[in-house]
């Protein structure tokens, strides 16, 4: 219901030459019509250009594209983030400050910088290192979108992980283990890392939300035909397609669950393997 309310927001406000008008009636009517359409089957079609298309046929393709980028980026970003956290915790504050600053830098600037850098390298050296956007079904951008989606996850996971590992290092159980002569890799993997992973598990929703937010920007800027493109495809012409946006949000919720599930699995597997070290 929350997703339907969110999808219906554009019906709440309309602008005309006389000014901005709140239209709660249109908002309520739109929601009511959508609920009825779910039962009549009308909710499963949408308009693309001049054609009527089936959401049931098209949605799996959009969903697959989003999953193909979001899942590897979340997995690799988190894994590398934990590795960076292990290397930087207890380290110099300047390194941590740099990682923290990276987390604050807007992600769209990173994407633009990656695209501009690629164009610049291509123009100055003649070497094409990556495709800056998907042009056709055969000419698909892969490397840059994956990099752009992975880096923000890596930075946040590294920051959260390093902070959690710092706390675990100062805890009584670590000091006790060190006093008993346990050190090196065993102290790190058996005593410190599991506690860092538990803390990171508490921030999984935040990490997943970051992947979803970046997916909107990456799919738009790299021209990837994913779920978020479908959500935003109602565009400027014609009437607002509440059913299309709602279906897109439902598909996006599935992407969210898949990313969240995968990251949970990663942290559980890492936790289990280090305990048995």
């Amino acid at each position, binding site marked *: 219901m929350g997703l339907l309310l969110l999808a219906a927001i554009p019906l709440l406000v309309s602008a005309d030459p006389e000014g901005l008008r709140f239209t709660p009636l249109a908002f309520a009517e739109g929601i009511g019509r959508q609920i009825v359409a779910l039962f009549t089957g009308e909710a499963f079609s949408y308009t693309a250009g001049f054609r009527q298309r089936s959401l049931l046929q098209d949605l799996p393709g959009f969903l697959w594209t989003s999953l193909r980028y979001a899942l590897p980026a979340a997995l690799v970003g988190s894994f590398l983030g934990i590795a960076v956290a292990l290397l930087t915790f207890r380290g110099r504050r300047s390194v941590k400050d740099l990682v923290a600053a990276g987390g604050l*830098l807007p992600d769209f600037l990173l994407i633009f910088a990656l695209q501009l850098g690629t164009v610049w390298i291509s123009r100055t050296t003649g070497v094409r290192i990556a495709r800056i956007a998907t042009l056709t079904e055969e000419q698909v951008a892969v490397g840059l979108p994956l990099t752009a989606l992975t880096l923000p996850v890596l930075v946040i996971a590294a920051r959260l992980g390093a902070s959690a590992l710092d706390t675990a290092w100062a805890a009584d159980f670590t000091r006790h283990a060190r006093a008993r002569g346990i050190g090196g890799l065993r102290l790190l993997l058996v005593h410190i890392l599991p506690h860092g992973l538990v803390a990171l598990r508490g921030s999984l929703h935040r990490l997943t939300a970051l992947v979803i937010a970046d997916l909107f920007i990456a799919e738009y800027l790299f021209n990837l035909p994913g779920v978020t493109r479908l959500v*935003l495809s109602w565009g400027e012409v014609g009437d607002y397609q509440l059913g299309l946006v709602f279906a897109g949000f439902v598909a996006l919720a599935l992407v969210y669950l898949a990313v969240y599930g995968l990251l949970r699995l990663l942290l559980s597997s890492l936790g289990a393997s280090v305990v048995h070290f």
Partner: protein
Amino acid sequence: MSTSDSPDLRLVLGSLLVLALLVLAVAGPALAPYGPDEAERVLSKIVDGEEVTLYPPQPPSQAHWFGTDVWGYDILSSMLRGLRFTVLAALGVALSRVFLGLALGVPLGLGRRRLLVLGLGAGGGMPAFIVVYLALHRSTINSPLSVESLFLVQLLVLVFVGVPPLSVSLAARIEALSASPTLIAAESLGARRLHLTRRHLVPLLREELLVLFLTELVLVLNLIGQLGIFHVFLGGTIWYPETGAYLSRTQEWAGLLGQSRDALLAHPWLPAFPLLGFLLLVVSVMLLLRGLEGRWRRRQQG
């Protein structure tokens, strides 16, 4: 690493850059080398002894340091005219968010209304820019509203989406502070909520509020930039259905970036200069923020 007495390099550099950008925002329109109606649509040039006619956009040159856009307008002049809108929006929204967040966070924190706090904190999984995009897209593209009216509406929406999470985080901090002996003593002596806020909470939170304001400033700039990418420009977007081109009505920096994003491959200087400008804006505030945090941390460590 700087000592507690020596000035933090980030703080000095961040302060200088923010100050310079504020001056540019105020004096920008007067400093712009070309007027708002001056466009160089066709340019004649002698190349290898032959006269050739050049059409916009033109790459950076002595006459146009940042080049010209597809309509022949000088990009540097557009940026100097548009900066005040970006700065005004970011400052106004961040300040309003902190003020309203505090106004809402104090009764929540002191009253310990956990259920309300949970309600305000819900919905954190959906990116804020999607809510703003859905709320503003239809009224921003080819808007019948005036630039001023639309700008104000957009700022109100930007404030509205940021206040609930901020008030929740402030409420948690105020709840923790309310257990301090100073506040318990003041409360037992019959101090009212307004008095507690003015005399005790605000002085205790002064530095945190400043850091919070700067963090919000970065977040608001990020949000404005994301909206710009999706062609929701501050002050309004002019959309030409025949060509599919988008134009910012105010020439604010996120708008200049968003309107030129499709020119990345053919004319990279079109998005490059607004991108560098926006990056400078964000990095300046971030340097100031990190510098203040560093100074605060050192002071706490004695």
